[in-house]
């Protein structure tokens, strides 16, 4: 017909708080959506891991078995398993339904800061403050890691996986991308200790937040700087950064109790979301919706776009 196709809706940022989960597990070290964004995991400093339906605000299950606080968790693509890493230096693989630890991988010499499943959930990749990244095989019963990536000179603070890449951010100020397909290690020097890294959804860019209160968007192939985002405060803590579901905005937690969003292209501050008084500990963006999971202190809040009308059920 004669009508031009409607322009893609402008990405709406989450501005509206729709749920608050009182986790009751001490400090929430990390809040993570599962693969499809319907559930979330919260890692508590009281050694527990909790599974929630954040949209309804219901706690589904508590997973106990870590020796110390849980620092990161991730769900498998089929939601059947959870991996988590904690300050007890162990990486645990959980069965979602039974709540039992299926396997426990020991080998890290320090706290495990970050864990990730690969796409098929056959490998757990964990990064630790012992400056090593370890790849654990979930398929076999072998107790030692498949491979140890010990190139980092300092602790691994963040870790992301794509189909064939392992992206690590280290406190030594380097972003390392291990390309399995190309058999290459690309190390980008940022300088400041990196707190969080992520891939853009199109897999072309890398976002890294560092302790100089700056987010940097780098071209994956060349390492060139595509954008810089400042304004928040991140000088001390390991805070997360995110990209929204459409790759239009860049978000980061801040120590001043806010979540900042910048326009990815312009670099201008788009939103300063006041979450709470304390440090925003963890952030996660819904994979498809404009939906943000924020962990501050002992609670987790879920934020949606303004136009979002709450489910009549909830």
């Amino acid at each position, binding site marked *: 017909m004669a009508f031009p196709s409607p322009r893609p809706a402008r990405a709406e940022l989450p501005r509206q708080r729709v749920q608050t989960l009182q986790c009751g597990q*001490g400090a929430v070290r990390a809040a993570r959506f599962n693969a499809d964004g319907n559930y979330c995991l919260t890692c508590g400093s009281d050694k527990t891991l909790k599974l929630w339906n954040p949209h309804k605000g219901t706690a589904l299950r508590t997973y106990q078995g870590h020796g110390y606080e849980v620092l990161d968790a991730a769900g498998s693509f089929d939601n059947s398993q959870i991996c988590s890493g904690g300050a007890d230096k162990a990486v645990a693989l959980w069965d979602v339904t039974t709540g039992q630890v299926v396997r426990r991988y020991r080998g890290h010499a320090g706290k495990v800061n970050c864990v990730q499943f690969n796409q098929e959930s056959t490998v757990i990749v964990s990064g630790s403050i012992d400056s090593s990244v370890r790849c654990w095989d979930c398929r076999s019963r072998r107790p030692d890691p498949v491979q140890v990536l010990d190139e980092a000179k300092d602790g691994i603070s963040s870790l992301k996986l794509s189909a064939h890449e392992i992206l690590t951010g280290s406190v030594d100020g380097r972003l390392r991308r291990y390309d399995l397909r190309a*058999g*290459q290690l690309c190390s980008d020097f*940022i*300088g400041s200790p990196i707190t969080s890294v992520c891939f853009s959804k199109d897999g072309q860019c890398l976002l890294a937040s560092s302790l100089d209160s700056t987010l940097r968007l780098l071209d994956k192939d*060349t390492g060139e700087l595509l954008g810089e985002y400042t304004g928040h405060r991140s000088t001390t*803590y390991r805070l997360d950064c995110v990209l929204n579901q459409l790759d239009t905005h860049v978000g980061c937690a801040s*120590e001043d109790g806010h979540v900042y969003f910048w326009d990815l292209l312009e670099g201008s501050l788009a939103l300063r979301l006041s979450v709470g008084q304390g440090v925003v*500990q963890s952030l996660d963006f819904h994979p498809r919706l404009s939906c943000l999971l924020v962990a501050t202190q002992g609670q987790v809040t879920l934020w949606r776009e303004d136009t979002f009308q709450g489910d009549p059920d909830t």
Partner: protein
Amino acid sequence: MAAAESSDSEEEDLVSYGCPLQPLQEGERIKKPVPLQEQTVKDAKGRYQRFHGAFTGGFSAGYFNTVGTKEGWTPSAFVSSRQKRADRAIFGPEDFMDEEDLSEFGIAPKDITTTDDFASKAKDRIKEKARQIAGVVAPIPGTTAFDDLIGPSKITIGVELLRKMGWKEGQGIGPRVKRKPCRQKPDPTVKIYGCALPPGLSEGSEDEEDEYQPENVTFAPKDVMPVDLTPKENVHGLGYKGLDPSQALFGVSGREHLNLFTGGSEETSNLLGDLRHNKGRKLGITGQAFGVGALEEEDDDIYATDTLSKYDTVLKDEEPGDGLYGWTAPKQYKSKKRPEREFKYIGKVLAGFSLASKPSAPIKIYPPPSLPRNYRPVHYFRPVVIDGNENCHLQKALEESTGKLESDPAHQSRHALTAAQRREQLGEAELKGPAPSILEYLSEKDRERLKEVKQASEQQMKAKIVSQQPPSSRFQSVSPEDVTLKWQRQLEGQLANAGSSDFKPFAKNPDKQKRYENFVKSLKKGEKGEALERFLDPNMTEWERGREREEFFRAAIFYRSSNSTLASRFTRAKYEDDVDKVEVPRDQENDIDDKETAVKMKMFGKLTRDKFEWHPDKLLCKRFNVRDPYPDSSIVGLPKVKRDKYSVFNFLTVTEPTTSVTQATNEKIQESSSLNKPKKSSRWDVSDKEKEKKDSISEFISLARSKADVQQQPPVPATEKCGTGTTETLPTVQVADEDKNQEEESGRPPMDLFKAIFVSSSDEKSSSSEEESDEEQQPTTSERASETPKQVEVPDSSSSNIQESVTSTTDSGISSLPTSKQEVDTTEEFGPKLPPAFSSGTTWQQQTVVPATSPGPSRKEKHRKIRERHKAKKERKRKKEKKRKHKKQKNKGKHKNKKSEKDSSSDTTDSSDSLSDMDTTGLSPKELLRRLKQLQY
């Protein structure tokens, strides 16, 4: 009905493939598949054929069920041999061939071929060869040769016609030519060695021909020898010929020399004559393979080769091989020039080879050396030096000292010479290089022992000198002068650098060494007797001095000789021994400075990027569904190389920004680290003590940070004021006190031990709050326990209550307060910390009320204290720590290995602390006070 209709319509829509099955007739059953045994085959006439029977072609012959059919294989009919024994068919190979084999392109084509009569001569050659071979292979070798000889000669029509036209065999076809075409001639300058041609043969005809050139004579063109294109089918070497049957038969035959000049023309030897000549011989097998029998008359021909092809099998019209074609001219002009061409190799030259232009040098054979007359073929060993404790140098020195050296050096055996002497005799230059004495390589003990040995032998020698001084010796008396003279003589050639090198034989005794050096120096100058004597210790007795002098002399020789000999063999190591090597990644991320500047200039990209080859594990590739990028490399990770081992620090290139936090905190860190004298190397190999230290430091850092945070936040409740107030009143005495406590801390087990003992961790929130209170109570109890260190700690609710009450005093607005004591507990990590669990500024204020009564703060704490004073810290936190330390002291020595986990435990506990804060807000101020007072004890 409706349903049926619909189904019909559906059927129309469907697309059908293949042909439909026959519709079943009414009442007809569905056909069952015919079982194998019932399947039948009919032949072309419609008769049933049995197959798979034993008599109709065997089992499973041919394709399944096709045997006997048109398509299949037809077995031959069985014929009983009982009746028709006689006419048993004789099978030829064709009987077993397929039709294709007999067709044009098969293995046995049945096509029209020219018969022998019409076949060309070329074919004949092949036949001839075949015959030859048959002759060799035949059971009685040579018989075929006879057949050929006797058989009538068949001449083809073509040949007959040619002959009628005047052609003779051996000639070429074409018009006659005036002169023979230039024939292949060997270069006369080339000497060829080999067997001489037997005289009398017509070999030399060509030479003669060259000389005789009748003008009016024309020649037929030379026959062209067709190129032999027969493939080599055997595995014999090139040019190999089997045993010659004729030779085997007759033992000898006309020696046939293949001739280059005559080419393929046949030899004109007389075969029959040969045969006749050998008539009397016994027929038998002779030849190379069998050697020459005892009855053989001559054995000279076994290596000759002979073939039938060399003989003319046609009796008439034969063409002489000399190319004269029957022309027989008088031979008087034959000049019998036989130059060196006689010595030519006349044998056949293999294709691809050419004759050598130069003879190979004859091998010289040397006769074995003639043995001397008195040679005895028995080896005897020279007698071993009897006193086995001396080395050869020493021995030599001793020998020299006995005066044997006085004998003419020319008479000395060369084995007696030292390397230096030999060098002098040979006139070689002296080897240069630093001259390390072997003594330097020896241990102190060995040196000592050597000295002893030397002295012992010295004594022996002295005795010898006295007892068996050879009469020929010039030195009858042993006066010092004489001795020195003797020594000097001997040292003459060697003194050049006797004392100059850096070896010190008397290094242990510096005085003696000095004396020795002076001694040698003066010795070099050529002083003698008294002059030398003055360098010796005047305090010694005469005898001692004499001894020392001897010793010095001997040392001068001894060390010198070993010195030079060793120097030639060793070089000083240029580098440190690299025994300790370590595998290091080949590619290192380097030049951080450059990168930092690049980052500052925001020049990301090439400047900041390092690319390395990285080998993922095979299994990892498999799990990631990625093809292995390096399928045939066994490396995993970065390619490594061996490098020298450095300290851990060299590998831990901790970048500057790693520690850069905020400006303020950074400064603090530096302060603290500078105060911490023994700097920790890396966070992984720190000792437990250091860990504790770190703990305290980090606590203070974070405390400072939190403090900063507090100051930043505008809505600061009254708590802060209280905190700052107390810190200012911090007593300095505590610093010292803490020092004392330092040793006691080291053995403190981690917090989780207590938890493991006293708390069930499986509980949920309630229990965790209990833990927290437990946490809090531990310090308090420990404080009490510091007076009675052996007392077992029991979790008492009262102390936890105290904590609760304490918290209740402060404002319970948790969320309103910024970063907190949670932070305090985060251990120092390299890089970003975990965010505080709760922003409660309350907890550290709890302890501000508590006076510092703890006995001894540690040294580590001292720095902390100082800084604290600087920063006007609250003392509550410190107090708490102090309490903890008490506890440590109590539990000293336990669970050392758990220590590494301590930091995290403290994290959790503190976070739970804050939880407890949340929970315990309902206490009355009175109660609180009471408990606080309790705390003080």
